[in-house]
């Protein structure tokens, strides 16, 4: 169980630090990707960053821009690993057993990368495939679904205890 944090950049856009890798065993790129919920794909990556990574080329796909125009780009397969700083859930779950930060494994997801654009964009397909909930406010937080489930159970237990009639002491 873990909580990971991203950040808001100087323009107020949410960003996550991610590692993108392809088929090459050692080639990878650590990048600051913007989270764009208006992008329906997985990851968009400028060609200059993508080429050295040995991504597996699939072919092409079209995407529709806000003005309705179509752009064609090459598509490739790659893997994204979230590198955002990780903290253990001790602070928000008093009853949870402490989890050493070193035991937390980063989550990697394989997906389709659109080769193009001026900057790296993480889209909705990436967010849906994460086993985490993404929260964006004054900061960016990724919470494991397991933590959320534990929180919900804790809240239900507290509500049940509060609703229970007081026991009469003899």
């Amino acid at each position, binding site marked *: 169980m873990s909580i990971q944090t991203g950040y808001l950049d100087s323009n107020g856009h949410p960003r996550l630090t991610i590692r993108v890798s392809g088929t090459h065993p050692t080639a990878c790129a650590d990048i600051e990707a913007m989270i764009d919920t208006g*992008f329906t*794909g997985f990851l968009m990556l400028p060609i200059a960053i993508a080429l050295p990574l040995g991504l*597996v080329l699939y*072919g*092409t*796909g079209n*995407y529709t821009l806000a*003005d309705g125009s179509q752009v064609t780009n090459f*598509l490739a397969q790659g893997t994204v690993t979230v590198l955002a700083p990780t903290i253990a859930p001790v602070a928000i779950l008093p009853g949870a057993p402490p989890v050493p930060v070193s035991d937390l494994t980063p989550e990697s997801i394989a997906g389709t990368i659109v080769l193009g654009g001026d900057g790296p964009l993480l889209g909705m397909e990436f967010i849906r*495939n994460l086993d985490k909930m993404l929260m964006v406010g004054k900061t960016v937080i990724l919470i494991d679904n397991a933590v959320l489930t534990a929180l919900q159970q804790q809240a239900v237990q507290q509500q049940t205890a509060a609703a229970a009639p007081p026991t009469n002491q003899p």
Partner: protein
Amino acid sequence: MIARELEMAPNLNDPRAISEAGERIYNQRYKQDFEANHPGEFVAIDVIGESATLGNTASETLMKAKAQHPTGVFHLIRVGHAGAFEVGTAYRYVHTDRLPRQ
């Protein structure tokens, strides 16, 4: 790849040529059936072998297509949509025309 396929194949260095070939194959062979029976799903059209692979997400569809046709070159289409993806809020990040038109 047989000689006939090489003759029919689009210029694989040109993404627009691959896209146009994929759209042409889709419109001729699959569009009517898929728009009736698989709206909203993704389809990867192999522009070499002209096969079609369906899936629920872009990544799932392309991984399945690559596994079934390892030498294929695919054009991804979302059934019933103008493009496979949409980019709404970050227009300036993806505009490929760096020189504004006068």
